[in-house]
């Protein structure tokens, strides 16, 4: 070891470093879309959280609450009781009012942008404008300091999952001003914020009032967690491959691109430190079902056959980066059934596509494909382009930066025929897989039914499945809906992406659960 001097004493703090390309760490839970297993969960606890284990489906488990929720009134009322002895990082007790206040904040104008499923479900939510002017949301009741009751406007079986979202974190009313909060949040999780260097780093240190006894998920082994922001992905990968110095106890928060994967594959030491998810988020080609020839089912079906999924998969990084997809519900979601309505070789069935087109009476089809302009998306879009070209379909690429893309793709009358997109459900239920993409209420206005797919039968079936509290019954319903939608061919499922992450040799228990396709930050260990 190092014999330099006494400075590297035994009491040296263990530091976990997270290398992220993002330049901002949105600390406010009210406007966060963070997964329950990543960054923000270091700081905040929610009513419920996710328990993910290698090789097992994700489960929703109690966090601050003693249970995942008790449904009443056929799933329209949900009641939670808080555990004993919960404290904020300033030593004050966590009460049900502070959770209510946290949720209320997410309704305010200033704190938009987070996961907002609860806002449409809570009764009176659409008129509520947040707590800052003294108003409160009556559909959240706090009969005592440890009990909180939610009144929904419709039955919703997945509410326990909703209660795991960032907005369900407690916020002290004295700490609620958005400007103060983001500089010095009073937290409920195992860590609190020590310093924030804008755009550069955020350092977390232990919250001594967090007690492991009340937390069934977080292990919080590191004494300190440092988020190194604005990292160049290339540099991150190279540093992690080299595995020296502080990079030993670091990992990259961004999944590896095709070139990074190729580089890691050629380096056995690095390869052993690569964690690859199972096939997960669906990558798909959305077909705008309201445009021109694409209104015809046969034309859309022709696309299903014409697409060259092999070129697409290679373009996204080969077999390390995904597996061929044919269904809407992604692997890792309970109740998924595998099927393929449009069986074809990996490179597609050009002949079949052509015959479908000619039977639809369509020739010289010209389509625009909307895609983001980063290197990876462009490579994938070109793979689609050349695939369809084989069937005589001319595709023009329309490339946009990520924001314009997000805006344009989610407009009410979008200006594209095809769009490349992907979907990672916000919680591991087929509901989160299907309803945001195919429910007709999710067309336009910034929502994600990119195919403009509207089918009354499907809408009704989705509503029924959502209201079903019995999970096994619900799962069967979702599987049926999946197939029903694919008969209409509103999208071409391309691949289920596999996300790969690289970590230093000093980071232990680094794995990627079947859902979500991200490493679980909460249970990492530090080996020095």
């Amino acid at each position, binding site marked *: 070891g190092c014999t330099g001097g006494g400075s590297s004493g035994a009491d040296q703090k263990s530091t976990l470093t997270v290398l992220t390309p993002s*330049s*901002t760490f949105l600390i*406010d839970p009210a*406007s966060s*879309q963070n997964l329950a297993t990543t960054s923000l969960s270091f700081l905040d606890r929610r009513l419920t959280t996710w328990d993910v284990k290698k090789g097992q489906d994700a489960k929703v488990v109690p966090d601050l609450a003693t249970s995942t929720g008790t449904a009443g009134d056929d799933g329209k009322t949900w009641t939670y009781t808080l555990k004993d002895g919960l404290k904020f990082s300033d030593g004050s007790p966590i009460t049900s009012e502070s959770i209510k206040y946290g949720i209320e*904040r997410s*309704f*305010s*104008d*200033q704190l*938009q*942008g*987070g*996961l*907002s*499923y609860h*806002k*449409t479900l809570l009764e009176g939510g*659409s*008129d509520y*404008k*947040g*707590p*800052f*002017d*003294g108003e409160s949301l009556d559909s959240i009741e706090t009969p005592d300091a440890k009990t909180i009751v939610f009144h929904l406007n419709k039955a919703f079986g997945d509410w326990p999952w909703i209660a795991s979202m960032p907005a369900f974190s407690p916020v002290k*009313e004295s700490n*609620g*001003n*958005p*400007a103060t909060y*983001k500089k010095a949040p009073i937290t409920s999780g195992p860590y609190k914020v020590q310093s924030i260097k*804008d*755009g*550069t780093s955020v350092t977390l240190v232990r919250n001594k009032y967090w007690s492991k006894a009340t937390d069934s998920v977080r292990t919080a082994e590191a004494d300190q967690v440092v988020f*190194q922001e*604005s*990292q*160049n992905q*290339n*540099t991150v990968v*190279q*540093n992690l491959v*080299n595995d*020296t110095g502080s990079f030993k106890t670091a990992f990259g928060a961004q999944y590896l691109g095709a070139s990074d994967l190729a580089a890691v594959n050629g380096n056995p030491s690095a390869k052993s430190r690569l964690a690859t998810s199972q096939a997960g988020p669906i990558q798909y080609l959305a077909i705008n079902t309201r445009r021109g020839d694409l209104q015809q089912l046969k034309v859309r079906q022709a696309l299903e056959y014409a697409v060259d999924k092999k070129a697409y998969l290679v373009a996204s990084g080969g077999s390390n980066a995904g597996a061929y997809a044919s269904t809407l519900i992604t692997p890792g979601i309970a109740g998924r059934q595998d099927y393929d309505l449009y069986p074809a070789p990996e490179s597609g069935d050009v002949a079949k596509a052509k015959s479908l087109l000619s039977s639809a009476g369509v020739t010289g089809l010209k389509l625009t494909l909307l895609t983001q302009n980063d290197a990876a998306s462009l490579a994938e879009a070109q793979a689609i382009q050349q695939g369809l070209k084989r069937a005589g379909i001319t595709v023009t690429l329309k490339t946009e*930066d*990520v*924001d*314009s893309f*997000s*805006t*344009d793709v*989610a407009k009410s009358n979008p200006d594209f025929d095809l769009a490349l997109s992907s979907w990672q459900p*916000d919680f591991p239920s087929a509901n989160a897989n299907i309803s*945001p993409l195919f429910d007709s209420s*999710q067309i336009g*206005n*910034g*929502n*994600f039914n990119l195919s403009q797919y509207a089918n009354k039968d499907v809408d009704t079936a989705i509503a029924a499945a959502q209201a079903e509290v019995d999970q096994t019954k619900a799962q069967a319903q979702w599987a049926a809906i999946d197939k029903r939608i694919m008969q209409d061919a509103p999208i071409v499922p391309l691949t289920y992406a596999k996300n790969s992450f690289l970590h230093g040799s000093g980071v232990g228990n680094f794995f990627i659960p079947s859902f979500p396709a991200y490493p679980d930050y909460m249970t990492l260990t530090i080996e020095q």
Partner: protein
Amino acid sequence: MTAVRFLAYRLAGIVLVLLLVALATYLVFYLLPADPARLSCGKPCTPENYAAAQRYLGLDAPWYGQLWNYLSGIVTGRRFGSGTGVVDCPAPCFGYSFQLSTPVTELILTRLPVTASIAIGAAVLWFVAGVLGGTLAAVRRGRALDRAIMTVAIAGVSAPAYLVGLLAILLFGFTLGWLPTGGYEPFTEDPVGWFVHLLLPWSALAFLQAAIYARLTRSEVIDQLGQDHIRTARAIGLTERAVVVRHGLRNALIPVVTVFGLDLGGLLGGAVITERVFSMQGLGSLLISAVGTTDLQTVVGVTLFAAFLITAANFVVDVVYSLIDPRVALG
């Protein structure tokens, strides 16, 4: 023109230019397809959420109204939200970043040290290297040294900045492991770390600029060495070195210094590619990421700041010009 009138005239000019810049920036971004309200609307995006985001971002006003709000905010300051959630942006408020929920002034102030460190260090490096190289080449005009320096210089102006930076990282950062591959340490916290982290960005940025300055200096020095007063300097028995430095270079520096002032002013507004390549969070990165997230107010604020630096640099250059060239009077 008297000094006071000159000053007033230039100040009015600066304000006018800045107003035009603000107008242009607002227009460009107004036309941009990306909709900030939609982007900060949350998931799923309901009409209520969307309206709330629009209200908060001030996007419910027409673009000129927004511009007016922005401009008047500089004088009066602005407040967002209400009740216990109110957020203040005190005057002079050069915008408020909703994405980062921080006043733009504060953002600029925290990012400026990074950019200034890059820009000033690189500027010193390229100025010294460029002027030295250019002078040597001019004195040895047509000889091997001139050829060598000009070959490097021409390669320097031909090499894309991003390539030089990336190759430098690959070589010195990864292959040799001598220097860190990116990031920034504040000087106040770790002077050595500051220097070590900046060495590569300085060199990468200075390589291109030094090449330009070497070429510029060379042609100016050659030009000066052909002037009559050089003959006088030789005729009074000055050493060749004194002739070149005291009379040739001193005069050649006048145009070089003016260009230098403008370059430095431009660079302080953000060294976009350098910051991006070296993962440094200066004004350039701030601006690029603000463009990326359609953070309009930040874009306008930083652009205004950059434009201000340019016009200020112009002003300083004019003043300096009148100081280093006795033939020139302000006006």
